[in-house]
């Protein structure tokens, strides 16, 4: 295993502006690039598409405390598209749940930082995912449990668009609406690409927003890379508590966002940047340093 050389964000980690979502999103990509290079792991395109979603959640939306990750009234986040786990690992590390240094062990033999997000031994991760179509059901159960317990924390579930091919997502969508789980918020990273083809060429989800609405949800679409728009949409979803309906935010994103040659290129669902590709990606990211 190589050293985590060029540990980029060292100067950033201690910076107070890690609470700026644009800064955190950049750190997610910058860490994601390193993790992908060192581990030779895949799914960098998904990590880049979900970066702003995760960054906005961890900068003022989620009620969580890095010093007390098991705080009883914390909000719960489930990354149902577990393959973008390094985005959550980076956000947790950068916001102080565990040392940023740990990220270099991603994918490594004996590491706790598996390719798909895992709760075993990682502060701040609620439950392991990786097989698609599980997270929304678990989130619905958590939301129902909170209500039964008279607790007012929220449950957030981040889904992939390809993941919405799974029937279990729609089972959960029916149940969450039936049980009026209005403190449950789903966010779909709608990058329009899945494993082999585009969403449109695989199983068309459109009309996606109205599909959710027809299932009994509050639904809205937003630019998933615009941190202000995301924050506003998330706040509206939070305000829906009391509406008797769960809420979904369809965040339109670009797979591989931030590195020109990765954007909208299915290859980067699998490929890991090495050598010149790494250098080129690094150069582009550095140019975007906030």
């Amino acid at each position, binding site marked *: 295993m190589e050293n985590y050389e060029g540990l980029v964000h060292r100067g950033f980690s201690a910076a107070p502006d890690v609470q700026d979502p644009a800064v955190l999103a950049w750190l997610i990509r910058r860490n994601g690039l390193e993790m992908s290079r060192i581990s030779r792991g895949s799914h960098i395109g998904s990590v880049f598409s979900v970066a702003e979603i995760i960054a906005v959640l961890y900068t003022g939306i989620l009620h969580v405390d890095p010093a007390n990750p098991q705080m009883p009234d914390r909000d*719960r986040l489930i990354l149902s598209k577990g393959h973008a786990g390094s985005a959550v690992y980076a956000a947790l590390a950068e916001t102080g749940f565990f040392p940023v240094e740990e990220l270099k062990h991603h994918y490594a033999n004996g590491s706790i930082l598996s390719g798909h997000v895992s*709760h075993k031994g990682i502060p701040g991760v*609620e*439950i*392991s*995912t*990786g*097989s698609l*179509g*599980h997270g*929304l*059901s*678990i*989130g*619905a*159960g*958590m*939301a*129902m*449990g*909170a209500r*039964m*317990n008279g*607790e007012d924390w929220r*449950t957030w579930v981040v889904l992939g668009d390809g993941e919405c091919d799974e*029937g*279990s997502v729609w*089972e*959960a969508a*029916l*149940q969450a609406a*039936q*049980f009026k789980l209005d403190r449950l918020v789903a966010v779909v990273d709608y990058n329009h690409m899945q494993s082999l083809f585009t969403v449109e060429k695989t199983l068309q989800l459109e009309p996606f927003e109205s599909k959710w609405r027809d299932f009994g949800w509050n639904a809205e679409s937003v630019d998933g890379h615009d941190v202000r728009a995301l924050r506003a949409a998330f706040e509206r979803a939070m305000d829906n508590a009391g509406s008797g309906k769960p809420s979904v935010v369809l965040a339109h994103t670009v797979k591989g966002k931030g590195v020109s040659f990765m954007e909208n290129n299915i290859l980067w669902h699998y490929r890991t940047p090495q050598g010149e590709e790494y250098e080129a990606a690094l150069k582009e990211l550095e140019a975007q340093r906030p």
Partner: protein
Amino acid sequence: MRDAFVRALMEEMAANDRIILMTGDLGFGVLQPLWDHYPDRIINAGIAEQSMVGMAAGLAATGKIVFVYSIGNFPTLRPLEQIRNDCAYPGANVKIVCVGGGFVYGSLGMSHHATEDMAIMRALPGVTCFAPGDPAEAEATTHAAVRTNGTCYLRLGRGNEPKVHEGPVTDWHLPAPLTIREGSQIALLSSGGILTQTAEAARMLEKRGISAEVVSFPCFKPMDQFAVKELSERFGILLTVEEHNVTGGFGSAICEIVAELGNGCRVYRVGLHDLYTAVVGNQQYLREVYGMDAESIADRAEALLHEKRTDA
């Protein structure tokens, strides 16, 4: 066993408000006492077993002890991955309850025959597996499932089974097997609702001059290794009985232990021999067709003893 389960669960729910029950739109009539007493703690998740089990895992994460109720293969094979990833892996307090283990829904056809569930559930690390043999065992295992931390599987029979135990099963600690009848020539080991047939087989054998011990295993995972060792050493010949495919099931679990002991004990497994049913009929009819009714069990035991004598 259904009613015994509901009775035991009622008691547990009265004592512990963390216990809730989810049903996959089944249990008409059977669950009525629970609906009547605890309407806020019964959730009909609809015909959506995968998401029901995922929700159960989420509820368990908020401190609940969640019983998930359905029939046949619906609460096991359909949401298997949710049981594995979302319940067993994090050790969620989810108790999967199947009504209709084996041929209970015989006439409904192969889709409703739960004949691989024991093997599949047993293969999941971290899942404690119960298959009570009669209503008394059903009550005892329901209480045990509440007290066992983590994910459990409770494989029940139907309603109105005959009693095998005279009174309630008390002072039982899992995974200990329960001796139903003492004997000296062969041991019949049974797990699940087929116990009635196994016990009847021993009575038939007695009339034929053969002394058979009957041992019920209401818990088939973990297995009581010491009890199995003792039985294998004392008898040297064991007949396992399950209303289930022999591949990977209860008999296989006994074989795994005995094979590693290497003490020369012979094990024969009564059950479905790698088949799906091809005919329809009630539970007892199918048991007869597939060689797991009392008479078939007795015949098999007698033949094994005969072979043993011939070999000697």
